[in-house]
């Protein structure tokens, strides 16, 4: 009886730790996305000359950075999904058993 409730308590603690770990990773990645995007938007709003600098014929800083924001959103998603599939899901399955 005691041993069983012990395991249950431990499982609940582990579940909470796992949930907390995911929350931190989710918040970290969201923070990264927010920083990337709003840095770009702040430059767009407050420093147009900087973004308008020409780096090469046909390439200005904003034309380089804009697509990079798009690509980085996808890469951040990819990082999260890889982590979730490889680390989070197996750990969750172990807990569920």
């Amino acid at each position, binding site marked *: 009886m005691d041993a069983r409730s012990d395991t249950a308590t431990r499982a609940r603690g582990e*579940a*909470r730790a*796992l*949930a907390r770990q995911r*929350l931190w*990773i*989710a*918040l970290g*990645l*969201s923070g990264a*996305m*927010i920083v990337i*995007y*709003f840095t*770009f*938007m*702040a430059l*767009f*709003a*407050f420093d*147009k000359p900087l*973004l*308008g600098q*020409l780096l*090469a*014929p*046909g*390439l*200005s800083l*904003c*034309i380089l950075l*804009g*697509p990079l*924001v*798009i*690509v980085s*959103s*996808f890469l*951040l*998603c*990819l990082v*999260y*999904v890889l982590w*979730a*599939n490889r680390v989070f*899901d197996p750990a*969750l399955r172990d*807990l*569920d058993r």
Partner: protein
Amino acid sequence: MGSNAISIGFFFAFMALTLLITYWAARRTRTTEHFFAAGGEVTPWQNGWALAGDFLSAGALLGIAGIVTSNGFDGMIYSIGWLVGWPIILFLIVEPLRNVGRFTFADVVAYRLRQRPVRVAAAVGTLAVILFYLIAQMVATGSLIKLLFGLSYAWSVVLVGSVMLVYVLFGGMLATTWVQVVKAALLMAGGVLLAFLVLTHFDMNPLKLFAAASQKYGAKVLQPGSRVVSGQWDAVSLGLGLMFGTAAMPHVLMRAYTVRDAKAARLSILYATGLIGFFHLMVFIIGFGAMVLVGPEAVTKAGGGGNMAAPLLALAVGGNAFFGFICAVAFATMLAVVAGLTLSGVATLCHDVWTNVVRNGTASEAEQLKVARIATVLISVLAVVLGVAFEGQNVAFMAGLAFSVACAANFPSLVLAITWRRFTTSAAVASILVGTLSSLLLIVLSPTIQVDVLGKTLAQVENAWWFVSLRNPAIICMPLSFWVAIVVSLLTTETNADATFAALQERILFGRAQPVPVPRD
């Protein structure tokens, strides 16, 4: 016009295919689970395409391409803003949503709280978003079809309304999903081909295309300007609204329920992000291609406020058949987006308002399906009537308003319901209502309504005490809504909500297999 016949041909092929799909789906739609969530049987890959189909409106292809053609780089601000919300959905929202909810995001907000007040408030927020977005889409659709096919405005709106009614009414989520998938595939194919044909003129090098554009129209087309987004804080506010509004769009969130589990929902968001991002990169090339190969003057002359950039480019690089194809794709796009919007409005009316508020969670399957079908007819009729009523009105602001309400009304309550133990029923209701009403109020007092719609001059209104110079209210409304939610939560206590927080967290992790708490209220 020969091209008109070709586009009508393509269009009928699309209609025939999607109506066939609807017929097939109708025979499989027997329960609310099927009607609202396609029985959870959609694969992540299909759902990713369907999400892209739901989200990429005609504005994404025709609108942004047109803005790029006439303004250069600035069009990209919209492309980027429409994408950066997706990672937020993935990281913070989709898994709790999938594991806790059943059909709508109100399921999640109301989980620990008192069902009736929360669901009524969430329905107000959701229906406001859906209605504004639907009107914006309907009016754009009517005028575009008039332009592309020569059909009269009112008939265009009626046609789109009836076809979307057929999809949703008979085929529910299953048919809507497949319509989205087919449409997204066509849109993607059209976009890739168009961008490819443009690049063949420039040695497959986008930089040569941009260089040619700046040679012809000056380096300013490669630089950020202020014609598309005027004020500085307005730009930041627009960004806020696009990012967090996307993360709380009801028709997008609803797709979390069409797949098997949280893992599948997560994957579908990843695929959708990739598809939408890739598409937006191509639209950028298409816009610059139209600038160089067609010319902004010709695009302006064709009418439709710049929307003809992509079709005219298709005509220039691919001839009549390709022009017809792109027009048909645009039509398919509008049809699919309004179908998705209608379905999520129906889910709110039937599942939140009828089943959980009016009937207190006790309606039978048959009754719910009946109510869902009545709601479908209601929303479709409303969309058509409003679409016709707003003919010729400047409703561009309504799409922005939809995003603003989503970000100020839905997003704060959703995030706080998932993460904050102290969050209470009164706080959820207050935050949703404040978010909705403040967005509405600020738009009405802004130049968007005062100058663009009511036709006053800026000088007439800018000194009035009530005047708000921001065109995008998100930067005020979203923090306000968060603030109201937090203050009201701290002022009220809800023992029940407090006690069920652990159960909610468990459900967020493990999903619906866990015992469901007894419905309260």
